[in-house]
């Protein structure tokens, strides 16, 4: 029983409860029906409605004394034939719509029991329409007709019900309240077993429905403005308006109410109305009409006038008209309470307004729209698309009918391709939840079955990569009218620039721009872009480590697209495919970027990343876009043969970290795995030699290749929490990037290999695999171990051993950072690391507390590596080369 039961006696409550219970049972049983079962019932119902269209129209006219018999019969036919035509092939049971390419299926779930309130103006047609919708969607309906149209509605329900049950619908699927009161409706509206209230009627009914706290479709009054613009086909406009406004004596709430006519055509339009049977009221007649058919107390139409003939209204008002007058037309000078006829009039009385301009006409239409017509219907007659567009922009109406009758147009399916309906959703402007023509889909709960989808992935690398000793010779293949070499002072000094110049095609004009070997500042970028512009360069050769190559990438971007806003382009993103800020595609200059790396770590020659600073503004800008990737990469070990030991170690570990993080990244793919694994293998095999014997050409070459291959992997799979921590720690304590990575690495491997506190959402992975990937790496390195745990332990140990071999400090403490200083820095370090986008591809989502713990682990330092040594010695002979 509803919580706040209205004043009903027990007997009445029991009767209403029985109705609801019966409907609930029917609705429950109905859930077992298939689409075919339902469709088998709907068609005979439609046929029965069509057969009885005239009979039901007559009953409605006799009972309500509203409207026109012939028009009511047509409405009954539209409610059956047109609605059937729309719903017959629609799926409303089970899977109703499928989007295989998106992995989505929509499945229908009936609502259950619907309480349907029907109006006096369109009584039987509304019942027929709602019965067909309910059966099509497997719902039960309790009808509560307007008391003034109860008998005809009950008969319509009976016809529909008997036909439905005869063809298999569950008993009790429709019931119709006999004589009933407002209290009955209130009781039912609040009843727990009513799933939806579908209220078609006056403002009171709609408000009650929406106030009940139940989901409701409340479809109420309108006030349709019509604009007849001077370019319109006037004959068509006048006939359409008369057809619509006189249809069922104007009882459809979408019918025309105030016609706003351009000054230039105003007289002609009125003449045409008069010629087709309308009476044009003079000033005193209009005033009298307004006083009589509109209640001066409320400002609303007099109910007694609803659906009456024009001649009858004229007689009642005391206006002398010709016997077959179809329509009374009353000029008005404005909209609002002082202009009574500017409101809704569900009878054949039309207000007209002469507008001096399009602007004025649109404003008057807006006024009418806001005088009780928000969200409902509006009509425009025009052959000017700009006028139609402007009208549709300024008028708030669920249906904007163009060059056709408002009432019949709004019903849909006759003059246009809108969904046929007898319920017009009026949107929030009308206090409704929809602006749609209410249809079967509003009688369904639609469930979305969303299958797991794998997002498309990618693997992007520079167009050309030249590698191995003397690969620089390939510069001969790149003719240029003007080349700018960007490098740093040391490289120029040791003769690397000369080597590059030697292999450029003869007569290539070459200029050199020397930049510092530190993270590029915006000033350096601007100078570089000025040089590129001055020399009209069509080729940029970046010769250096990560900083130089990054500088060249950004210079190229600004040279080609000067409007590029670097700060905006650095806006963080979660998924590169969905990023908000797009890199420029329009270029005023074009230059080929050839990157020649002189360190074996960052891999910047193949990555889509670049970092710069703006020291003056204290900004660090990280750019990421595949358009930044160099066009050509040259990986020639002759440029790294003289790298100092410390740099060899730090960059080598940076390379290993890239490969390990790409290997376990949530964006890892078979494409990136192949690169990551190969890079890891090369690092373990060749880094110690490159470190101990810098002139070993093979080791240098393989480490140079490893750095490039690892960069290819992380360019496409990204890095992880190790980089997030290293960025934060390195920046705070001025520790080189590679070294900072090294201090974190063993701890991060162990961390990622354990069961996560929080899993990272990763649709492309079926399960948590980081520990298995580490075990796979251990196998690749031939470390042995019987279980995944053992293999991971051995990988950690062998990594520690490698770090020891490279003389990497064992702990942050060894760097001379005191515990107190570190403790003080910890909150900021954890916060900065958490803000770093690097970890977003980490297999395990780090909690801030876990970042703190990892930092402390790095501070305390790594183990002694004995276990790894043992494992490595034991398996030395079994090492597999891949």
């Amino acid at each position: 029983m509803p919580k706040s039961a209205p004043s009903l006696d027990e007997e009445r409550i029991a009767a209403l409860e029985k109705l609801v219970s019966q409907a609930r049972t029917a609705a429950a049983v109905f859930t077992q029906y298939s689409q075919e079962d339902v469709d088998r019932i709907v068609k005979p119902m439609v046929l029965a409605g069509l057969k009885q269209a005239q009979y039901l129209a007559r009953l409605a006219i006799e009972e309500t004394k509203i409207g026109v018999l012939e028009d009511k019969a047509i409405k009954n036919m539209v409610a059956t034939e047109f609605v059937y035509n729309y719903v017959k092939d629609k799926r409303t049971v089970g899977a109703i719509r499928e989007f295989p390419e998106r992995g989505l299926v929509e499945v229908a779930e009936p609502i259950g029991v619907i309480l349907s309130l029907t109006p006096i103006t369109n009584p039987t047609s509304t019942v027929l329409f709602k019965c067909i919708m309910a059966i099509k969607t497997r719902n039960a309906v309790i009808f509560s007709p307007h008391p003034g149209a109860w008998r005809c509605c009950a008969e319509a329900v009976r016809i529909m019900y008997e036909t439905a049950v005869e063809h298999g619908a569950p008993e009790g699927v429709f019931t119709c309240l006999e004589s009933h009161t407002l209290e009955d409706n209130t009781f039912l509206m609040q009843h727990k077993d009513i799933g939806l209230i579908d209220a078609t009627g006056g403002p009171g009914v709609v408000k009650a429905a929406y106030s009940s706290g139940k989901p409701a479709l409340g479809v109420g009054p309108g006030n349709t403005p019509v604009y007849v613009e001077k370019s319109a086909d006037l004959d068509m406009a006048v006939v359409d308006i008369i057809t619509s406004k006189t249809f069922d004596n104007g009882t459809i709430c979408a019918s025309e109410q105030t016609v706003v006519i351009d000054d230039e055509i105003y007289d002609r339009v009125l003449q045409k109305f008069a010629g087709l049977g309308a009476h044009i009221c003079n000033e005193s007649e209009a005033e009298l009409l307004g006083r009589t058919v509109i209640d001066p107390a409320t400002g609303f139409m007099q109910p007694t006038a609803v659906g009456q003939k024009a001649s009858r209204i004229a007689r009642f008002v005391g206006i002398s008209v010709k016997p077959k007058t179809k329509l009374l037309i009353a000029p008005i000078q404005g909209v609002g309470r002082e202009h009574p006829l500017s409101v809704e009039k569900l009878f054949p009385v039309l207000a007209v307004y002469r507008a001096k301009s399009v602007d004025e006409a649109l404003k008057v239409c807006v006024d009418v729209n806001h005088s009780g017509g928000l969200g409902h219907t509006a009509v425009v007659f025009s052959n000017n698309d700009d006028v139609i567009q402007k009208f549709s922009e300024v008028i708030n109406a669920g249906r904007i009918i163009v060059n056709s009758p408002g009432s019949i147009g709004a019903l849909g399916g006759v003059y246009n391709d809108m969904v046929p309906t007898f319920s017009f959703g009026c949107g929030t402007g009308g206090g409704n939840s929809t602006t749609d023509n209410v249809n079967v889909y509003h009688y369904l709960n639609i469930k979305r079955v969303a299958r797991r989808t794998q997002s498309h992935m990618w693997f992007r690398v520079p167009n050309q990569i030249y590698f191995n000793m003397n690969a620089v010779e390939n510069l001969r293949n790149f003719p240029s009218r003007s080349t700018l070499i960007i490098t740093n002072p040391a490289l120029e000094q040791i003769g690397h620039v000369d080597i590059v110049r030697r292999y450029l095609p003869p007569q290539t004009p070459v200029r050199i721009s020397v930049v510092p070997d530190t993270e590029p500042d915006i000033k350096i970028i601007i100078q570089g872009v000025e040089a590129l512009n001055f020399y009209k360069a069509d080729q940029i050769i970046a010769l250096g480590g990560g900083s130089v190559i990054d500088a060249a990438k950004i210079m190229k971007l600004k040279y080609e697209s000067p409007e590029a806003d670097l700060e905006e382009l650095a806006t963080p993103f979660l998924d590169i495919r969905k990023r908000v800020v797009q890199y420029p595609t329009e270029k005023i200059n074009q230059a080929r970027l050839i990157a020649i790396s002189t360190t074996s770590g960052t891999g910047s020659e193949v990555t889509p990343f670049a970092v710069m600073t703006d020291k003056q503004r204290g900004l660090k800008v990280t750019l990421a876009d595949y358009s930044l990737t160099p066009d050509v990469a040259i990986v020639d070990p002759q440029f790294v043969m003289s790298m100092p030991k410390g740099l060899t170690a730090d960059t080598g570990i940076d390379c290993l970290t890239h490969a390990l993080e790409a290997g376990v990244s949530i964006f890892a793919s078979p494409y990136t795995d192949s690169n990551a694994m190969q890079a890891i293998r090369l690092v373990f095999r060749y880094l110690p030699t490159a470190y101990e014997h810098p002139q070993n050409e093979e080791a240098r070459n393989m480490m140079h290749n490893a750095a490039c291959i690892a960069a290819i992997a992380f360019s496409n799979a990204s890095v992880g929490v190790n980089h997030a921590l290293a960025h934060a720690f390195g920046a705070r304590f001025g520790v080189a990037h590679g070294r900072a990575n090294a201090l974190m690495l063993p701890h991060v491997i162990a961390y990622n290999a354990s069961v996560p506190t929080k899993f990272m959402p990763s649709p492309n992975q079926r399960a948590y695999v980081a520990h298995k990937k580490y075990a796979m790496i251990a196998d690749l390195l031939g470390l042995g171990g019987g279980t995944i745990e053992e293999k991971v332990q051995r990988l950690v140990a062998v990594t520690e051993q490698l770090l020891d071999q490279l003389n990497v400090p064992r702990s942050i403490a060894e760097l001379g950072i005191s515990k107190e200083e570190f403790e003080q820095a910890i909150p900021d370090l954890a916060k900065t690391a958490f803000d770093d986008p690097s970890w977003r591809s980490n297999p395990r989502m780090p909690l801030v507390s876990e970042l703190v713990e990892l930092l402390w682990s790095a501070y305390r330092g790594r183990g002694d590596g004995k276990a790894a040594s043992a494992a490595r010695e034991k398996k030395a002979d079994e090492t597999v080369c891949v």
Partner: protein
Amino acid sequence: MTTTLPVWLKVDEGRVVEALQEAGQKLVQGAGEVVLDFSAVHRIAPSALLAMEELADRAAKNATKVVLRGVNVDIYKVLKLARLTAPFLFVD
């Protein structure tokens, strides 16, 4: 000590109401437990729900158990919507 065996009734698709009524009779006659085998029933009608309501009332009065066996999920959903799952025990 004596043990009363449950009354076992197979429900046919076309005779659901009759089977439910028969089960009600068994309860009136003092059956301690009634098991209705629904495995051959694919769909039920409103009349069957009415009969089930009556059977549930009878069982409650007698403080006895009615077990429904092999009810398919479509019918189970109907019983759920009609709030008729609580009075019965369901077994597969």
